[in-house]
């Protein structure tokens, strides 16, 4: 894992990244990455979903609210969706959501979307490495994170 200069500011801090992976492609891709022993940072927490089309804005925001430093959503490549078009609907939704969250001031590198097929174990490892690097560079999430007031 490449060392990151930002670490100086947040000594010992490791980002937590919630990864919503579709059951049919990306989750299998992650599995393959594991079986093939491709190394990638241990910062992701995988949530297996039936389809990237299942991932609503609610889920992504809930992850951020609960303190995730980054969110990764990955599904089948266009044309490969188990449900034919779930990922294509999702693509539109993510396009709007990503642009919208940037608009209100959420760092673009907090939220990532990806296509990973079941055979792309190596790519999955690369993807997670890249996403982790980018989220790390941003430091801990502060926006949209729910905190309870001190009493």
């Amino acid at each position, binding site marked *: 894992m490449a060392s990151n200069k930002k670490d100086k500011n947040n000594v010992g801090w490791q980002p937590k990244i919630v990864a919503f992976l579709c059951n049919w492609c990306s989750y299998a891709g992650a599995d393959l990455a594991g079986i093939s022993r491709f190394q990638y940072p241990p910062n992701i927490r995988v949530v297996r979903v039936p389809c990237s089309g299942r991932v609503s804005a609610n889920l992504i925001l809930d992850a951020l609210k609960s303190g995730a430093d980054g969110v990764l959503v990955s599904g089948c490549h266009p044309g490969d969706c188990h449900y034919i078009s779930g990922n294509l609907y999702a693509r539109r939704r993510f396009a709007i959501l990503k642009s919208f969250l940037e608009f209100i001031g959420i760092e673009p590198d907090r939220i990532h979307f990806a296509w990973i097929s079941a055979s792309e174990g190596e790519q999955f490892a690369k993807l997670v490495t890249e996403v982790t690097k980018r989220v790390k560079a941003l430091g801990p999430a502060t926006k949209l994170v729910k*905190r309870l007031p001190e009493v």
Partner: protein
Amino acid sequence: MEPLKIDKENLKDILQVISKDYKTFCPQKTDKGFRDWRIINRDTEFDSEFFSYFDEVTLPKSSIKPFFFPQPETLLTFNYDPKAEDAFLPKQCLDKEPDKIDTVLFGVRPCDARSLILNDMPFKDDPYYNIRRKKIFLIGISCTKQSSTCFCLWTGGSPLGTDGLDIILHPLDDETGYVIEFISKRSEELKDTIFPEKFCSKASQSELDEIAARKEKSKSALKSMPNLAEQLKQKELMAVYNAPFWQDVAMSCINCGACTFLCPTCYCFDIQDEVVKKRGRRIRYWDSCMFPLFTQHASGHNPRGDKVKRVRNRFLHKFKYFPDRFGPVSCVGCGRCIKECPVNIDIREVIRNLLAVK
């Protein structure tokens, strides 16, 4: 206790004195254009804009309700770590110095102040509310003009009313200053600290006469008003409940909570738990009988599932259920709901309709 007089120019000094010792709030212009309760601190600009409030008729956007019934109020805290010794053990969070005044509201209108007297009734045994009542000191300002949505006299209030206030300022007709009337016992104790002699003088007889005459006038105005609470108490419950006009009132209602949340005397709440990581708290937050979920059972059954039932409940609570239970109507006539209702439901029309029910 003898009333004092303060010159207009000295209001600023007084506010500086008070805000040194207490968290002091005053209706101020916000960047949204309206006036609302904001704290007085170093950044506060005491310009003509600031002081125009004391000569205007505009009410602050929010009532003083949030100070006494905050949104939200933390009722309890608890440790949500199952391994901890005190896991899931609720702990109450009540103020450590419940008797110490720490906040001053400056410029409370009589209608808003009177809402406290009404809210005291249901919250009689509520420690959170009662502690805030003791910690907050109210300095009011009587109204010399009325806005088109004001109707405090209807509900038994008065533009010069002192209910709920510790101190009231009465603007003088010549616009030179204000007569300070001390109302509560605790205001006498605090008199020298918050209205120090160097900024105040004894009110002259003519000034006192002016205010007395004004009070007399308002008293006779109040007398000429029908006693809403008494009249409504005499109405038969099911007759007002089944009155046909509710359908018309409810038609345009969009069931938002704007009226209830801005209302100084709407006090319905919900209780919910929040957990973040291993810390948790139980909060009480504003709820509104306008929302369908307000009455919905876990089974899905909803006693007030129809819009008309919810709209009717809000008004009947104010004008029938509350008077039947506590005496007065639960409305102070501030007119916020009329002003802010997105679909112009006018509570005064509802009152007229209610009074017309045989």
